[in-house]
């Protein structure tokens, strides 16, 4: 990038004008709301597909799909069962014939797009993504205090994807140990029977790129997490990762080793809210 220091005033003015124009023309734009404008006025299938009349069989789209759902047999086609509706192929502009088409997604298929396409927002959270704001706004919203642990189980990433019967296995396992999915997590809206954690039956075979399920447990029960994870391992058909959210000690250090012990597995990478919004008494937006 080149920042032209000498023309900053004129450029600032141009930028202000352009940004204002963009803001007016794009409405909610990047902020994200449920629903998605469709570029194709006449979708003809209930899932994403490649128009065989337009496809010239160049195969450029094939390797783009994170789920490996596109195959080339003379012409490219999308396997609707394997497709998670993430939109990578369509967004990429890779097709020289513009043959990749968005489908007319209905319930429950639409849930694939809601969970897999990062340009879609969840109505329950109001933000783009698969879960709540987690630790990102904890200095403002105080979800995680020094008495509890946030537990995040993400199924399907990387590479494999996940079906909701695997998600249900996670929800049920935590429920058996006394933990409910936190409100605000999109999965909470799919639970049919809160007593056991079963999901709506029509979503169970839907496939998503990844699905994040969130729980909170008291710090005094930290020792229960590993046995729960091992139990889930026996009951799911895909890969999953687990993260824990911890309010820092008063000196800024992580209490992870104190809570989980020196032998506990820990990736050498962490995500840290640095507290700059702490104490800002926000007005209601």
């Amino acid at each position, binding site marked *: 990038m080149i920042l032209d220091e000498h023309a900053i005033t004129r450029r600032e003015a141009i930028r202000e004008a352009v940004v204002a124009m963009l803001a007016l023309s794009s409405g909610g734009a990047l902020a994200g709301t449920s629903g998605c404008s469709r570029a194709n006025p006449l979708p003809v299938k209930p899932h994403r597909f490649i128009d065989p009349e337009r496809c010239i069989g160049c195969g450029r789209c094939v390797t783009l799909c994170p789920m490996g759902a596109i195959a080339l047999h003379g012409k490219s086609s999308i396997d609707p069962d394997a497709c998670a509706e993430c939109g990578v192929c369509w967004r990429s502009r890779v097709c020289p014939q513009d043959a990749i088409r968005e489908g007319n997604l209905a319930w429950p298929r639409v849930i694939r797009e809601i969970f897999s396409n990062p340009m879609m927002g969840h109505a329950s959270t109001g933000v783009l993504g698969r879960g709540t704001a987690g630790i990102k706004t904890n200095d403002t919203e105080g979800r995680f205090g020094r008495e509890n642990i946030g537990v995040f189980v993400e199924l399907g990433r990387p590479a494999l994807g996940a079906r909701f019967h695997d998600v249900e296995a996670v929800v049920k396992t935590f429920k058996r140990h006394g933990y409910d999915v936190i409100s605000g997590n999109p999965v909470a809206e799919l639970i049919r029977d809160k007593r056991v954690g079963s999901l709506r039956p029509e979503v169970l075979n839907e496939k998503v790129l990844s699905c994040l399920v969130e729980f909170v447990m008291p710090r005094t029960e930290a020792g229960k997490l590993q046995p729960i994870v091992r139990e889930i391992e026996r009951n799911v058909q895909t890969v999953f990762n687990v993260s824990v959210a911890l309010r820092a000690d008063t000196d800024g250090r*992580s209490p992870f080793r104190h809570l989980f012990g020196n032998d506990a597995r820990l990736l050498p*990478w962490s*995500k840290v809210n640095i507290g700059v919004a702490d104490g800002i008494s926000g007005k209601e937006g």
Partner: protein
Amino acid sequence: MSHTSQRRGVDRHTANRELIVLAMVPSRYKRDWGVRGAMRELAMTMLKHRPENWLSRNFTRLKVPKLGPAQGVIEFIDKFRPQATPEILVSLAGLMSSVMTAVYTDRDAVARLIAEIKGPWLSRNREKGYPISIVLSGIPDDVRACCTRSGVREHTYLHSIGFYGRVAGLPSEDELSLMTMCGHGLISVHRVRHLTGLIADRHLTPREAAEDIARPCVCGIVNMTRAADIFTRLAAGLGSGSPLTS
């Protein structure tokens, strides 16, 4: 949400090579024009400290339906005045999104950025009640160094305790290092392997391959410098000669 917390191929041996800065305001504030202005100012500050990649960087190369007619305007500007495009894109992201992200390859730059954030921008936010949070993702030594140097203290941690379940079905560690650079899982292992083959056959440079896998990541958090290094390593294992250099 886990997003940047599952990155592979980074540890204390790769210190000072990758730090992600994320800013976020609770969603109920995102329609407040004062908050939007503060986010845009922050976005421009983040750009000033020369990130490797940032949110919205790819929007001239992707279909982004929610931009509506604005996408055409951006592409028109990009065609005739490309040097103005980064500022417009990052400003747009700051203005319209409740999240702003950027990835840096120099922790000194991040420390300077955090120090700048702590100045008048944060004072104004405190006065006006704009609760914009800042999150750093990186190896613990880098995060600690940035916090210490800029005089802030860690508030809340998110630690990954690893992958479980059907891990035998996962790609190789180097491939995973590339794929986990996108927190939404949008980088395809098939694409990684295809590009590796092209590098090995000297049809593509590692940097071009890194740019290619960075494109689907709408958050702009792929570290293309590290990705190019990994592609070089992968292609060296496949090809007969050394890969092209970027």
